[in-house]
């Protein structure tokens, strides 16, 4: 297998996994928070937040990448601020690829989790409250376990999307081998080369294999968790 992929391609595989993993992991807490806010809270600007979350889905990825660049670039206000205060640089780093992937995947994650939250019977949360659990504790001990299948589905979607994200990533952090060249960028690069289809196909297969593996695994976990929760 190592002969089948070049070291550079291995780098791309490893990088894609790393990017997808972190993009998913880091966006989970805000994803759950935002989903909960959209599902259960009533506040001014709720619809605005809802729209904002969906934005990456509606815009062409290239436009999203461009907006990211204009926001988190090293010359851009937020990017400069983050670099100077926290020392975090997104531009042209794998972290930026993760940011782009995370943002592109965010609407999918939020939607899945929100759907799960809306399906939770509020009477169970009420029961927990009568047993003395304050709101955040009700969330942690009742709501969260009950929405776990939805959270897992959200994470799967986000991971898959992060594995496939290309347009925003290449626009935002470019396509630097070993640093920001993810599998999709590599595939794209091959598709740009006449006769590169064979190489592209090879990477597509790798990409599919990796993503399917992750998918199957999480599917398995999700099924288990769902069965465990429903007790059926």
């Amino acid at each position, binding site marked *: 297998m190592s002969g089948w992929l070049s070291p550079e391609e291995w780098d791309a595989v490893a990088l894609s996994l790393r990017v997808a993993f972190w993009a998913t992991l880091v966006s989970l807490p805000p994803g759950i928070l935002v989903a909960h806010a959209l599902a259960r809270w009533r506040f001014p600007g709720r619809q605005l937040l809802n729209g904002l979350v969906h934005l990456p889905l509606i815009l062409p990825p290239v436009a999203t990448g461009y907006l990211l660049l204009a926001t988190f670039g090293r010359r851009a206000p937020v990017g400069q601020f983050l670099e100077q205060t926290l020392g975090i640089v997104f531009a042209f780093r794998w972290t930026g690829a993760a940011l782009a992937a995370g943002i592109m995947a965010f609407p999918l994650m939020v939607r899945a989790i929100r759907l799960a939250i809306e399906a939770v019977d509020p009477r169970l949360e009420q*029961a927990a409250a*009568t*047993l003395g659990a304050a709101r955040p*504790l009700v969330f942690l*001990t009742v709501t969260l376990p*009950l929405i776990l299948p939805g959270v897992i589905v959200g994470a799967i979607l986000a991971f898959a999307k992060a594995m496939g994200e290309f347009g925003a990533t290449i626009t935002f952090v470019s396509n630097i081998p070993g640093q920001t060249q993810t599998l999709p960028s590599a595939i794209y690069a091959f598709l740009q080369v006449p006769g590169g289809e064979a190489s592209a196909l090879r990477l597509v297969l790798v990409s599919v294999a990796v993503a399917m593996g992750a998918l199957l695994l999480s599917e398995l976990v999700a099924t288990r968790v769902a069965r465990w929760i429903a*007790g059926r």
Partner: protein
Amino acid sequence: MTLSVRLAHDFPGFALDVAFDAPPGVTVLFGRSGSGKTTVANAVAGLLRPRAGRVAVNGAVLLDTEAGRFLPPHRRRVGYVFQQDRLFPHLSVARNLKYGRLFARGTPEDFGHVVALLGIGDLLRRRTADLSGGERQRVAIGRALLSAPQLLLMDEPLAALDDPRKAEILPYLERLRDETRVPLIYVSHSVPEVARLATTVVMLDAGRVQRAGPAAEILSDIGAIPTLGVADAGAVLTGRVARQHDDGLTEIAVSGGVLYLPMVDAPPGAQIRIRIEARDVILSRARPEGLSALNILPATVAAVREGEGPGVMVQLRAGQDLLLARITRRSARALGIGEGVDCFGIVKTVAVTRQNVGLIGD
């Protein structure tokens, strides 16, 4: 007053407007389906925010819409057994039971004791989804009891249970009533249950309080009979254990004489209350002889009330206590029963089952 409830709320097609106060002990909400019992319980638990009202328990104000006070449910410390159980599907039976302990501020009941009482020891590691109806309900009761509540709300907790199981749980609820200061609001359709547990009875009808007051008063009240149901009418007497006999009978001194009841598990001197159903009392003008019934109380007819059917409800005064007897109009005429007439009330010893006898703590 331990419990003070004043609530007004409107649903489309249903208006709730109730007010009642209750001393320590068990307050039973009684009323037909749809009369508003669960709505009251929800408002007390903080799950419903009524249009207007005030709820205070042991001096703590849980709700006062005028003062703008609304204590959130988790700070009210109510143990609520819901009419449709709401077990957590993602937790085992044991975890469901222990859930409330995580947040309990008081000392909860002993876990092992509650589990044994409810007969759910074998279920502890089970998921709740597969439990039978009665098993679910028992777990729900256990969960509420174990949360160290300041107030217990039970909405028909025993409806799904068989009689032997009920008979096991009721004494425990009595003990809870008598030994702890935890007030209990109890919704029930079962008059024997009410008679046995209730300190206070609140009768609801179409969202309003129809009658409220001490249990003995309400249950012996001839006017309350239509709501209670004629079949279940009966009076509640208080007495004192006089002696335990070898043959399993307990001699009870009541104000009007002596009753022999199937073994009452209480030491001499203990105060108990006894519900005697109206249909279990036979009247006789002369003291009868040679009957298998052991309890014969001399009494005077206090009131007679004719219903629509062939029956007549006779209220008797036996010493300080009131008794109810339901007899046919034909018998009433034959025996010449009328206000002020002296007669004997005959009660079968075994008719007063353990269900109908309750201890009163001090």
